[in-house]
């Protein structure tokens, strides 16, 4: 059984919601990334997303764009990320998910990519620029390796939600707002309406992401779904740290406050 499915079952049994956190792999270096994964797990992250740095991340806001640029400056290759994940997996138990752009998979070779994911201990893959209509290029490879391709729905998806939800695996990534990733002060979306539509179609766990950056947001939004995703706000904690040690402390403290808000 895929670790993502298992995790959501466990959480459901405990009447808890999933805290999903994100860091960009290789920002500032892969040794730190491994430490961050371990620290986030120990502070209560249920699932961890790892962004694979890309030169042209069209769905990312400025914070994750900068993290990508920092990682690429250090010459991070996907092979290195796979190796780092493998090392982290020796002790890390939580599901690990890659977030990366389709071109990276295409150049790696989809079959090779998903089998390396499986071998290194990855459980799911989010491809922000691969909509439902283009999924068949990799769906077979992903399924064959037992890796969940995570589907996204956004407030503009409307009638597309049916077919997306029907074919989704693991959990449904619900995009909170229009635009790109990044911290927001408030949300314009009518979540009652948004989740009413989603719940009509989705029979798998739902996690909300994009812009969620504070404990207040967690309290405000956790009632709508089965999990919340915090990305840019975690990356910001890395960015503001002077060195790896400080990054681990800052990220750890931040995840701890998020966990607390989630469990209140």
């Amino acid at each position: 059984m895929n670790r993502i499915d298992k995790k959501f079952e466990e959480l459901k049994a405990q009447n808890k919601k999933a805290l999903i956190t994100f860091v960009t792999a290789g920002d500032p270096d892969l040794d730190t990334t491994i430490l961050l994964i371990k620290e986030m797990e120990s502070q209560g992250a249920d699932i961890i997303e790892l962004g694979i740095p890309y030169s042209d991340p069209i769905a990312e806001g400025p914070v994750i764009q900068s993290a990508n640029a920092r990682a690429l400056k250090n010459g991070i290759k996907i092979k290195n990320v796979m190796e780092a994940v493998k090392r982290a997996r020796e002790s890390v138990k939580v599901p690990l998910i890659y977030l990366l752009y389709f071109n990276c998979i295409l150049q790696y070779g989809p079959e090779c990519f998903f089998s390396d994911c499986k071998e290194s201990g990855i459980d799911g893959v989010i491809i922000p620029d691969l909509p439902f209509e283009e999924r068949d290029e990799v769906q077979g490879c992903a399924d064959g390796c037992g890796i969940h391709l995570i589907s996204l729905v956004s407030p503009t998806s409307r009638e597309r939600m049916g077919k997306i939800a029907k074919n989704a695996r693991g959990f449904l990534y619900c995009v909170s707002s229009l635009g790109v990733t990044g911290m927001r002060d408030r949300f314009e979306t009518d979540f009652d309406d948004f989740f009413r539509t989603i719940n009509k179609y989705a029979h798998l766990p739902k996690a909300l992401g994009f812009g969620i950056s504070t404990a207040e947001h967690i309290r405000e939004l956790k009632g709508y779904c089965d999990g919340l995703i915090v990305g840019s706000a975690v990356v910001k904690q890395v960015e503001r740290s002077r060195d790896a040690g400080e990054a681990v402390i800052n990220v750890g403290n931040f995840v701890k406050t998020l966990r607390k808000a989630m469990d209140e």
Partner: protein
Amino acid sequence: MTFQKKGRFGKFGGQYAPETLMNALIELEREYDRYKQEDDFNNDLNFYYKEYAGRPSMLYYAERMTKSLGGAKVYLKREDLNHTGSHKINNVLGQVLLAKRMGKKRVIAETGAGQHGVATATAAALFNMECEVFMGKEDMERQSLNVFRMKLLGAEVHPVSSGTGTLKDATSEAMRNWALRVEDAFYVIGSVVGPHPYPTMVRDFQSVIGREVKEQILKKEGRYPDYLIACVGGGSNAMGLFYPFLEDEEVGMVGVEAAGKGLDTGKHAASITRGSIGVLHGMKSYFLQDRDGQINPVYSISAGLDYPGIGPQHAHFYETGRAQYVSVTDDEAVEAFKYLTRTEGIIPALESSHAVAYALKLAPRLSGDKIIVINLSGRGDKDAYTVARYMGVDINE
């Protein structure tokens, strides 16, 4: 696979866009399919082509050039004479008229050399719409005159400093902004690139170039040309010229890419010549990239060709052999720029100078009964500073 997916040219094209944009793309496709068949829309478009942009553009027999090269007969399709100075207006008028009909109040655009930004700002002024243009920071420095023109026209110009600060990054930023404003904004893409339906729609609006050439050359020569030559960055002026000749197999097509400082220097923008198949900005096509799929920085003296990819239908033409793709260096392009200026009294854009440069090589090798049509996609006034700098001349007061 025999089943052809929507928006595909062979295996190229597609719709690799974030979910937030998908319904907007589907709506755009539906509305475009509807309006392109309506007489009312086409009459409007043709009215503005003629009365506003100054179409049809002339097909000019370059007699002195022909004599000096001593080979094939050379014609120039004078897109440089269009209002705003390039072929970009053809596409922009089509898209902005469509945006207006779809009830959009705001248009956004990316621009490299600034020609597409100027054209979009112009149409936005004409149709009283808000306009925001995304432009690489480096390009804003190279093309400060166009930045000023856009501002005069009422557009807001946003500098993009992420990545390499050029057209690629401006395109990414425009797509990000579109995702934010997707409900009230219309994204006017400037070339035959991007997710479906853009490559098809832009091709259709630019095809006025080739349709006119067909009529004009028949009148002058009683037959179709042997070669069509056009520069390619994203490839819209080339596609506009080529596409109406697609079924006329006797007509050769040559797309000219920017070889920059040379194909082996790593400083070029020759996506087909030196690239590989990938996905960026919503489309599968040829891109300059590394083995991890990271997009390489590209370079050309001409800001309008400074893009790491090419339109998907060009990729398909290349793969099927229907068109041929060659490349021309900065040096050759600047020589051609000077040559055409002195020989015909026409200052071509540095982009178009790449097409002229290839014609300088091809024409002398052909016999006098052969005909070449060069797409003179834009005028070169905007490049005067760049060429002066290149020649080491200081023209600042």
